[in-house]
């Protein structure tokens, strides 16, 4: 089987079997990165360009290492250092990066739809590494991979996403992905951060965090941004932590073997306590490792990999 289209822009249009295919492909990738010599020649001669218009350490490094472990050549262009400051348009940057020889362009951008605009412009594959509040498909795929690894399946699980849903591309991709794979998604946060009609995407809305956590199998906690307070979306970090912060007591409302996840970077003492972040149920570090494996799988599949040559040696 192959993935539909040349790009990975979001999970809205990804089928269950495509998602499963990506997750299955990430399994041998994880095995590769657990070796002492974690490098395979699979993508030798391929060029991957990471174009990051927003600061990001975690996602950019994850993509960069994923490319290197597969022996692809990868370079990074950051928004501030590039022609962007000289006023070059996204479309022109995309054309330039393609002309430089990119086979795959990984793009992170503050505006929704930016990855789709790039994908329309160039023949290279485009991977959306987060576009505004739209989607962050590789994060959702690594979340699903992590849960599947721990639980064996995603079917029938109750997944609670807690925090600023309005501004979260992770929440949107997680809602599409987990529900397509047969899980049920709940979202919870202050009503000022729950976007209009999010339930039409197939999730349930909870105002009270205790209700959202009740019996949940997976708890995904989102980062709360300080600037949202300045925008008047919540009164203050203390009140937020009191009302929505995840602590041991609240996590105790979830299923006994519930998993705690966070896309990072975390604000200890705000959206979750250090105790739960470092606790036994936390998979926050595993998510980071799995992120590399999942991105290797995506690079491999978009570069034209198929069933016949999965690099399991």
């Amino acid at each position, binding site marked *: 089987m192959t993935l539909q289209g040349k790009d990975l822009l979001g999970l*809205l249009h990804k089928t269950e079997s495509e998602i499963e295919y990506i997750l299955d492909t990430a399994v041998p990738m994880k095995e590769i990165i657990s070796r002492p010599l974690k490098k395979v020649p699979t993508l030798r001669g391929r060029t991957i360009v990471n174009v990051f218009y927003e600061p990001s350490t975690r996602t950019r490094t994850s993509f960069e290492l994923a490319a290197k472990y597969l022996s692809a050549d990868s370079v990074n262009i950051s928004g501030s250092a590039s022609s962007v400051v000289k006023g070059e*348009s*996204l*479309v022109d940057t995309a054309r330039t990066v393609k002309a430089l020889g990119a086979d795959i362009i990984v793009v992170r*951008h503050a*505006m*929704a*739809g*930016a990855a*789709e*605009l790039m994908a329309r412009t160039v023949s290279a594959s485009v991977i959306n590494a987060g*576009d*505004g*509040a*739209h*989607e962050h498909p590789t994060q959702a795929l690594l979340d699903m991979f992590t849960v599947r690894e721990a639980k064996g399946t995603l079917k029938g699980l109750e997944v609670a996403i807690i925090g600023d849903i309005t501004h979260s*591309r992770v929440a*949107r991709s997680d809602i599409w992905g987990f529900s397509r794979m047969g899980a049920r998604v709940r979202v919870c946060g202050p009503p000022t951060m729950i*976007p*209009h*009609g*999010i339930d*039409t*995407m197939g999730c349930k809305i909870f105002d009270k965090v205790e209700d959202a956590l009740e019996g949940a199998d997976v708890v995904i906690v989102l980062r709360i941004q300080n600037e949202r307070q300045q925008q008047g979306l919540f009164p203050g970090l203390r009140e937020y932590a009191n009302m929505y912060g995840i602590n041991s007591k609240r996590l105790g409302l979830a299923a006994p073997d519930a998993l705690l996840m966070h896309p990072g970077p975390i604000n200890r003492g705000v959206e979750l306590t250090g105790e739960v972040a470092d606790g036994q149920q936390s998979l926050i570090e595993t998510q980071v490792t799995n992120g590399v494996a999942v991105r290797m799988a995506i690079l491999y599949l978009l570069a034209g990999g198929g069933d016949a040559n999965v690099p399991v040696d």
Partner: protein
Amino acid sequence: MSLLIKNGIIIDPCAENRAVKDILVENGKIAGVSEHLTAPEAEVLDATDKLVTPGLVDMHVHLREPGFEAKETVQTGTLAALKGGFTSVACMPNTYPVADNASVIRYILGRAQEAGNAKVYPVGAITKNSEGSELAPMAELKEAGAVAFSDDGKPVNDAAVMRRAMEYAKMLDAVIISHCEESTLAGGVMHEGTISTMLGLKGIPAAAEEVMVARDVILARLTGCRLHIAHVSTAGSVQIIREAKSRGIKVTAETTPHHFTLTHDYVHGYDTATKVNPPLRAPEDVEAILAGLADGTIDVIATDHAPHTEEEKNVEYDLAPFGLVGLETAVGLVWSQLVLPGFLTAEQAVAKLSLNPARILGVPAGSLEVGAPADITIIEPRQEWEVNPESFASKGKNTPFAGRKLTGKPVMTLVNGTRF
């Protein structure tokens, strides 16, 4: 030189009945309208099976000149008007510099005369530089040729300024055209709803428009000024205007072809041709707009023709300017979406495209009476065609209707008896 238009189906909002008649045009004026006219000297134009209507009037266009000639000029915009069946257009003052002084108004009128296409009626600014604080010299603007006042593109945020503007405009017997958008609630790039949530784009709630429509009808009642609500896009606005009219407040309203045709669903794919202000709304809003058109709450169909360059539009959705071009697709959309499905009769549609805007602006158009200027539009109501932006006379190709199949097309336009 005279012209005899034979056997056309006359759609005149001023006349009682639809009838097949001949129209004689002499010296730029309508010299006769009746059955079986003869004029041996006249050139004969056969209009059998075609609709002959008063020249259409678009009371809301952006001709972009002076200042934004890369987007459109008076020459290209008025040519686009003629191609779309419009013999008169009212152009909005958000040029550079803003049409808040008599010289800009006179400049636009001069360019229109040089172009010699559709008639141009400039709209003057309500406030200086359309900044919403100090009143523009409305009397001077009117003297120079402004037919109405608007800060279109921007709302007049300060209620006290709007009140003063209305008091002043009433003295001049001028209409205030209000772009209703409560800025503190707006600030998004598309309609706030299920689609903006899915796409992660910041929404403009319907309430942002409705709050200001409500404010302005209340101020119109307070001042007695004639108020015209530009580009009505929400069910709530239609309801507020309907109620205001029933209470005798002097309010009229327009909507656009894109607002009665498209919903926010079209924003999927981030095509910036769908980025327009007010935004494409939810299906229930479109239904309410159709009902408002049918029951007369909405008096006028105007295009809000807003050309932009390819470079300006081929960017991230957040960065693209608002606006789409409408002059050359309006008649096709009115016929395909309103007349053929039966929401409006041809007479009602033509009234909203000619007589009603002409009356609101107080300009000589909208009638086929003997003695009126021979501004005439001939429409082939059954002609099927496909929208091809590359064939537009407008410099702006920014339309969400590219490739759409429409029925109904203006095939000839006469301005003061001159054929285009």
